[in-house]
C-alpha cells in the first residue's frame, strides 16, 4: 500500500477493512458510553467493589493454582514419553474450546455435593465447593489452566535441552536441574503463560455462574456483576467493563513488549 511498487488487490483490502471495523466497533461503542465523570463513584459502589475485590482474589488464586499444577503437567507432556499422550494433551486443552457453561456443568457433576469427587469431599471433610469462593476459583482454574500448560509446554520444547545435560554432568539431580536450569530458562514463557492465564481467569463467566453460582461477595465476580448490572445500573456495568478491558489491553501490551518478542518471536 506504499506509493511505489505493487499495490494490494483492492477487494482484499476492502474485506480486511470490514473485518477490522467489525472487531473494533464494539470497543469504540463501549468506550463512548463510559461515564468518565462519575466513573470513580460508580466503581466505588458496594456491589462493584465487592465484585472487583473478589475477581482479584479469585483470578490470582486461579493463576497460582494453574502455575503450581500446570507447570509439572506441561513438563510431563513435553518431556516424558507415554502411551496415549496425544489423547491426554487433547483433554488438557479441551477447556480452551469447550463452552465454559459446559465446563461448569461438568464441574458440577464432578465436584458438586452429589458429584463424583464432591460427594467424598462433603462426606469426609464437610467441604462444599458449589456456591463458595473456592468453587469460583476452581471454575476459573479449570478454564484458564490450559493457557498456562500450552505456553509452558511450548517453551519447554523450544529450549535447548543440552543445558539440562550440562547441569546433569555437573552433578545436579533431575529435580535440581528442573529448578535451577529448566525453570530459569523457560521463565519468559512461564511469565507469558501466567499472564494469559490470569487474563482468562479474570474474564471467566460461564463456568463460574454454572458451578459456583452468583452470590454477591462470594462468587459474583466482575463479569457476573457486569451481566446483572447491565439491567439495573448500566453505568456501573460499563465502568466495570472498562476495567476488564483495560486489564486485557495492559496484558497484551506487556506480552508484546516484554515477553512475546523473545518467547514467541
Amino acid at each position, binding site marked *: 500500500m506504499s506509493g511505489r511498487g505493487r499495490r494490494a488487490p483492492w477487494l482484499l483490502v476492502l474485506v480486511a477493512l470490514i473485518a477490522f471495523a467489525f472487531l473494533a466497533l464494539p470497543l469504540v461503542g463501549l468506550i463512548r458510553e463510559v461515564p468518565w465523570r462519575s466513573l470513580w463513584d460508580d466503581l466505588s459502589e458496594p456491589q462493584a467493589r465487592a465484585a472487583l475485590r473478589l475477581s482479584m482474589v479469585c483470578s490470582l488464586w486461579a493463576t497460582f493454582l494453574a502455575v503450581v499444577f500446570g507447570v509439572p503437567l506441561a513438563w510431563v507432556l513435553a518431556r516424558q514419553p507415554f502411551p496415549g499422550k496425544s489423547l491426554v494433551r487433547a483433554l488438557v486443552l479441551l477447556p480452551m474450546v469447550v463452552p465454559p457453561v459446559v465446563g461448569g456443568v461438568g464441574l458440577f457433576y464432578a465436584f458438586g455435593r452429589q458429584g463424583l469427587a464432591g460427594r467424598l469431599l462433603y462426606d469426609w471433610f464437610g467441604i462444599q465447593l458449589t456456591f463458595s469462593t473456592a468453587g469460583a476459583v476452581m471454575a476459573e482454574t479449570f478454564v484458564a489452566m490450559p493457557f498456562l500448560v500450552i505456553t509452558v509446554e511450548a517453551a519447554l520444547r523450544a529450549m535447548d535441552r543440552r543445558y539440562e*545435560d550440562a547441569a546433569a554432568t555437573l552433578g*545436579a539431580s533431575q529435580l535440581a536441574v528442573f529448578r535451577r536450569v529448566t525453570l530459569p530458562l523457560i521463565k519468559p514463557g512461564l511469565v507469558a503463560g501466567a499472564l494469559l492465564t490470569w487474563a482468562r481467569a479474570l474474564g471467566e463467566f460461564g463456568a463460574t455462574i454454572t458451578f459456583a453460582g452468583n452470590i454477591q461477595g462470594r462468587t459474583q465476580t466482575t463479569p457476573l456483576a457486569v451481566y446483572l448490572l447491565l439491567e439495573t445500573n448500566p453505568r456501573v456495568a460499563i465502568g466495570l467493563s472498562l476495567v476488564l478491558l483495560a486489564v486485557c489491553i495492559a496484558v497484551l501490551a506487556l506480552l508484546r513488549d516484554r515477553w512475546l518478542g523473545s518467547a514467541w518471536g
Partner: protein
Amino acid sequence: MGLTAHIELRLGSLDLAIDLEARDAETVAVLGPNGAGKTTLLRAVAGLLPIDSGCIRLDDQVIDDGERIFVPPERRPIGVVFQDYLLFPHLDAIDNVAFGLRSRGIRRAAANRVAAELLEQVGLGEQKHAKPAELSGGQAQRVALARALAIQPRLLLLDEPLAALDVTARAAVRRDLSRHLEAFDGVRLLVTHDPLDAAALADRIVILERGMVVQTGSLADISTHPRSDYAAELVGVNLLRGTAHTDHVTLTTGADIVVPDAGTGPALVVIHPRSIAVHRTPPSGSPRNVIDGRVDAIDRFGDRVRVHITGDVPLVAEITPAALHDLALDAGAPVWAAIKATDINAYPA
C-alpha cells in the same frame, strides 16, 4: 587407571561399535568426519545416553554395562566441556563455575571461593560477574573448562572445544587449552573434526568413521601409514589400494606402482603430494614410476598449488605457483606424474 570403553549403541542410522582406552594424564583425540558418531560416543561416556551393550569402566568402577549397571550422569566423576560451551545464560561466570559444587551440596561461600580461584587460574579473575553473553568465545571456553574442572573429575570430556571460535582466536585459545589440559592429571578425551586441534592437543589420535575406530596412533603414525581415505585426506597424502608383489603393487585399477619393498598380499600405498613431479611431456630419466592422466582441478593455497590428476591412478600433486606458471596447466590438460620408488611408502593393508 583410566578409561576403558567397549561401546555398542544404535542411534537412528548410526551404528556405534567402539573399543577405546585412555590412561591417566593422556589426551586422546577422537577425530572423525561429521556423523561418524563422535558426539554420541562422548554422550555415552558422560552417561547422557545409555549403551545397548558393552562396558564402560572408569578406574575400577563399571559405569555402564548395557544391562544392570547404569550410573546416571550426575553421579559419574566426569567433567564435560560441551560444544558451544553451554554456559547457563541466567548465571554469571562464577555461579556457572560453582554450579557443580553447589549441586554437590557445598555451601555458597565455599563453592564461590573455589570457583573464584579456578577463574583466576584460567585468567578470568576480572570477569567473575560477567554473564555468558558478555564473554568472548575464548573466555566462554575457559569458563566452561573451569566449570568442568570444579567438580574435580577423573575424566574430562571435550566436545569440539575450538569449533565455536573464529580463526583469529583459535590459535591462542588452542595454546591455552593445551596448557590447561596438561595441568589436569586425569584422563582427557576430546572429540574434534579438525586435525590441527588433534595434533596440538592430543598424545594419541583415534580415527572414527561410520561408528567404528579405523585407526589409532600418533599423528606421525597416521601421516605415514593412513588406513582410510579420510585419514589420508586429513594428513594430506595420496592413499592407493592394491596387492603387493614384493617390488611392485598392482592397484585395484590395474596399474602397477614400483615400490621399494612391499612384501606380498593386500597393501596400501602412500604417496606424498610433494613427491610427485608433474610434466607436460613423458619424462625420461631415473623416476621409476610415470603415470599419465589429465588435470581434473587446480587448487591454490597461498604459496602451494594442488593439482588433482585423474586417470588409472588418481593423484594429487603439490607444486609451486612458479611451476604451475611454467607448465601452463589447465583443467583437462594431459600430464605425466613422475614418482621415485624411494618416495613411496607401501605397507600391508
